[in-house]
């Protein structure tokens, strides 16, 4: 009986040893394999994210290059189609002076040439103002935006108003220009696509944050639409906004008002980065 018990106990020890060892090894190998596969999965996910980010950067860069090219083409067209013929006409009038010796005709030609040169000066001034608004340069973002909104409002198409609540300390001039361009682009989009009857812009600050909010009652987009359009080839203007704000380390949010009546766009900047 004692021998049987000893044998049983020995068999139990063997069983514990055998299954224990197998179990421990299986757990260890399982853990190691899990860690290897988990890490591969994580790395793969990180790389996919990185690649997507690179692709988006590429799209933003392309959009900004295309916009630059469009701007150049517009300026070239303005100069070629408007300034070119005006100057050519002025040249013709002056040329006539050399041929025609009649005093009255000469005076008339000079007067006409002067008129044309004045028109050309005005045209070039307009082109120059569209490149860098003088109000923005001389008086800052608040005045430039006010000016822009007054022009829109006086056209009678849409009711536009704006109010700066806390803009005693101006942003850096370059940054003001970027914010102004973003606002211009947003206004442009609202005028083109939304069918809104009013636009209202407000500026305020909260701690280190600088906010510009625009409301309109037309057809707008939400953040999801914005992100979708940013990832697609469409929405050049929105990509341009995104790439401009990236320079300022700023963010933009598109949302529908809680009342579901208005669309709201918020631009958020860090004051310390941009002052």
């Amino acid at each position: 009986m004692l021998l049987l018990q000893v044998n049983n106990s020995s068999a139990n020890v063997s069983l514990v040893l055998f299954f224990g060892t197998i179990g421990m090894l299986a757990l260890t190998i399982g853990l190691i394999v899990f860690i290897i596969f988990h890490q591969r999965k994580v790395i793969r996910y990180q790389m996919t994210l990185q690649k997507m980010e690179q692709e988006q950067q590429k799209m933003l860069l392309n959009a900004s290059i295309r916009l630059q090219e469009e701007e150049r083409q517009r300026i070239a067209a303005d100069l070629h189609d408007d300034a070119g013929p005006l100057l050519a006409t002025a040249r013709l009038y002056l040329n006539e002076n050399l041929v025609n010796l009649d005093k009255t005709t000469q005076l008339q030609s000079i007067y006409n040439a002067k008129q044309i040169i004045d028109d050309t000066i005005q045209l070039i001034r307009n082109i120059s103002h569209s490149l860098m608004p003088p109000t923005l340069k001389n008086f800052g973002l608040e005045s430039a935006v006010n000016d822009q909104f007054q022009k829109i409002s006086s056209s009678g198409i849409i009711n536009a108003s704006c109010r700066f609540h806390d803009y005693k300390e101006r942003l850096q001039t370059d940054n003001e220009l970027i914010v102004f361009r973003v606002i211009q682009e947003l206004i442009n989009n609202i005028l083109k696509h939304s069918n809104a009857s009013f636009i209202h812009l407000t500026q305020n600050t909260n701690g280190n944050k600088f906010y510009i909010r625009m409301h309109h009652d037309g057809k707008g987009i939400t953040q999801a639409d914005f992100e979708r359009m940013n990832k697609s080839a469409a929405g050049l203007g929105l990509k341009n906004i995104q790439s401009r704000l990236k320079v300022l380390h700023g963010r933009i949010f598109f949302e529908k008002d809680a009342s579901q009546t208005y669309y709201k766009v918020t631009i958020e900047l860090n004051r310390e980065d941009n002052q």
Partner: protein
Amino acid sequence: MDLYFYVVYIAHIVPLIMFSLNIKLNKTSSHLTVFVYCLYALLNDLVRNSELISHLIPNLAKSDFLLLSTFTIIEYTLLAYYIYNLFKNKTFKRVLLIASCIFLVIAFGNLILEMNSNTPQFDSVPIAISSLILITASIFYFFESIQDPDITFIYSKPSFWVVVGIMIYFSGTFFLFLQYDNLSEEDKNNYWIISIICFVLKNIFFSISFILKPENQQVLNADEYYLNKLE
């Protein structure tokens, strides 16, 4: 038995050769710890198999116990020190330090007690404790590694292979050493193969770690691999 003898000695020597061949790569102190451990394990086996110790301690059981117990303590100290240096998390370091202190108290207490007895037992308890601490520390290391934002494959790090070796060896031999005193002589001989297999595996993993470039000399290989795959 002769075959086992040769296998064990070859397994002992291979990592030492690998270390020596790649000595330029393995100059870091952490690798040196593993090398010292491998060298010490070889010397310990050589001394145990020779009659050198019997000249100092005539009692064979005591001399064998002394060698095994000392080996357990030094083995644990070297491997724990290696893993301790791998940890970046201070809490993990502190836990390992406290666990090591507990282990050392138990191991030395066991050594003194058993040396005073006429028939010292196999040091199952210190070995089991050291195994548990080292396995837990290895799991901590893996946990820390997968949280590391570095984009490097974990298996391209030499430390990964050392830790895998430690885990396989200690988890494979845990029950064998724990039940060693309860086994019959026949079972001991039968099951000793587990220890040999785990020992060989451990030394293969250590050898792999010695031929890999240290972490700080590696390029971010995952970048290239996945970017190519994603395209």
